């Protein structure tokens, strides 16, 4: 191995040690890449696709949009686990977190096959409802619950169960808070404005250093206006 290659491998090893969750970020980037055909071909109201294609697109969208926001929790699962189990723990957390999203995605994909689900004003309505939902008293509670942490057993099936449960405990309120926003994104046919805008909104809320209760309502209202204008034009 050349000195340069050796040094690079040392840097990568240190990065992997300091940032055990790096692969989850790669997964999210891959999901964005896989979504490119949708992003580039999206029409404002989407276009009919099969249940399986719809479910696949939903799942990719959820991975692309949510995984970058939960990297800290992925890391938390790793740091609370024995080194030999860290990858397994992180995967367990992710599976637990994504499971409710994927199940809900099946319902969305099934519904999205219907002709009425492609009415051009539906994305605007969904984002408008998402803005209203974010103003309800339940919404900030859901956001708080989506940060919840749980103790993890260190080994055996109990460790796998706890990682799944930890992910699920964060994933369910995450779904409860953001389902309308994600449905809106789906109704746009996974449009770039909706997906990028939705990701930025969620990131601004989850990663801000103090509560910003106006960010999501205003952002969703802006998306509602954007897609409303697209429909009118």
């Amino acid at each position, binding site marked *: 191995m050349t000195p340069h290659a050796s040094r690079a491998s040392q840097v990568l090893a240190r990065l992997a*040690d*300091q940032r055990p969750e790096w692969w989850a970020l790669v997964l999210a980037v891959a999901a964005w890449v896989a979504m490119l055909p949708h992003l580039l071909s999206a029409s404002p109201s989407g276009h009919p696709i099969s249940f399986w294609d719809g479910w696949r697109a939903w799942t990719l969208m959820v991975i692309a949009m949510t995984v970058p926001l939960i990297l*800290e929790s992925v*890391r*938390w699962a790793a*740091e*609370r*686990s*024995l*080194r*030999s189990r860290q990858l397994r723990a992180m995967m367990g957390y992710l599976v637990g977190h994504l499971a409710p999203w994927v199940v809900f995605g099946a319902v969305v994909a099934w519904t999205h096959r219907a002709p009425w689900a492609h009415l051009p004003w539906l994305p605007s309505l969904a984002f408008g409802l998402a803005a209203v939902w974010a103003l309800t008293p339940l919404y*900030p*509670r859901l*956001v*708080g*619950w*989506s*940060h*919840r*942490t*749980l*103790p*993890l*057993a*260190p*080994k*055996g099936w*109990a460790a796998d169960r706890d990682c799944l449960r930890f992910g699920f405990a964060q994933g369910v309120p995450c779904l409860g808070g953001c389902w309308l926003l994600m449905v809106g994104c789906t109704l746009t046919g996974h449009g770039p404005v909706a997906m990028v805008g939705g990701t930025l909104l969620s990131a601004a809320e989850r*990663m*801000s*250093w*103090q*509560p910003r209760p106006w960010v999501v309502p205003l952002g969703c209202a802006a998306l509602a206006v954007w897609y409303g204008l697209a429909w009118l034009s």
Partner: protein
Amino acid sequence: MRVRKAVSIARNATTPDPTLLWYSRAIGIMRTRRKFADPTSWRFQGAVHDYDPSTDPYKSPGDPTPATRIQTGFWKKCQHSSWFFVPWHRMYLFFFEQIVAAAVVEAGGPKDWTLPYWDYTASAAARKLPWAFGQPTWPGGETNYLYVARRAPGINAGTTSLSPRDVETATALGKLLFSTSKTSSDVEFGGPQVQNHDGGVYPFGGVESSPHNHVHVSVGGPQGFMYDPTLAALDPIFWLHHANIDRLWEVWIRESNRLNPQQLSWLKGSKFKFYDAKRKVVTMTSSEVTDTRKLDYIYDGMSAIRRAVLESVVAAPRVRRLSMIGATQAPLALERSALHTVISTVALPAAASAGLEGVAGASTVLLHLENLEGKENAGSYDVFVNLPRRADPGDHPQLHAGRISMFGARAAKRRVRDHARVGFSFVLDVTRIYQALSAAGSWDPEHVRVSLVPVYDWSDEVKVGRISVNTR
């Protein structure tokens, strides 16, 4: 520049200490002449820390609560288990001191009234509640508003005092760093890097854990104001206790190689709103409170000249990531005990299979107690490492890893539906014990035995989510 001085602890039945007498009179004005909706009232100031109408001892139909908008904007803002713990409380004290000083002037007192601090670390005598706070009246019969009946048994009478373990500060002051990543099982002086709306359970910072939490629990007892964050700031001693915590931050930063956080997220990322003495809304960030001189006060015994601004020249040391090397497999129950000497011990079964080989040569060994949940009365617990079975913990002070105190457990329990946080998290540095036992050849690399001993006989059962051993 105002100088905050140590509170008078002397018993003086004839001549009241003027600082405390005027403090009492100012509280009298804030409590009796001002309505709850007045931001400078005693109850409003208490609610800024935390508030729960179900526990409010001064609730009265003729004194309605302020508008919801005001409550949302200014109440229940205390920062705990967070790197905002010390800066937020510094801001809180700063405005409170102005409000009290204005009330002192209103009462006919001096214009330079300054909040004293309770330095319970100074001596054995200083660990007793300052005498004036335990007297219902002043000499001559004037009501003493410093007196609060709801304190731990014996505290007001002076028959009970804080223990040396309650006021242990060396651990916190010895920390080189201010904060850690919130995902880490580590502890530093000021607390983890937590967003102020985060719902996770993260370890208390060093100074918050000890002496802050211990003093709250020991002074408050099971029914006292100080025990409950929704009531704590209604006890006048709260403010002197926090002035001492604020002073300890100043002591810490004046040590060599200490550094306050440099991240913008800490310096300016979170803005906190308060009312000042003129009832004007003021917004502050941590960057505005890193130096007390900019707030026009210092503590006695400290030079007004700080060593050349350390913050800009000292680089934060790099620390290796911790490794979790063993943990309890399932949640545990620490049963209520009628005797101080009854011990609930916890072995670390995961250590046996995972091995503690990583401990050999470890520079740091940390014990992390996670998701501790109490019932109504969860008190303080002494944590021991490798305490022999049926041994009297008093005979093994060298195995004492530290004390943990469940300040806020009752309030947290009440709000379990509103808050994602489930219980508390504590980190204790057991490196010294590990090194001593290793040197004596009595460190079992495959088993670490942890014992939690209730300090008070009023403690209810406590659930412990997990205990882990972490090394670097």
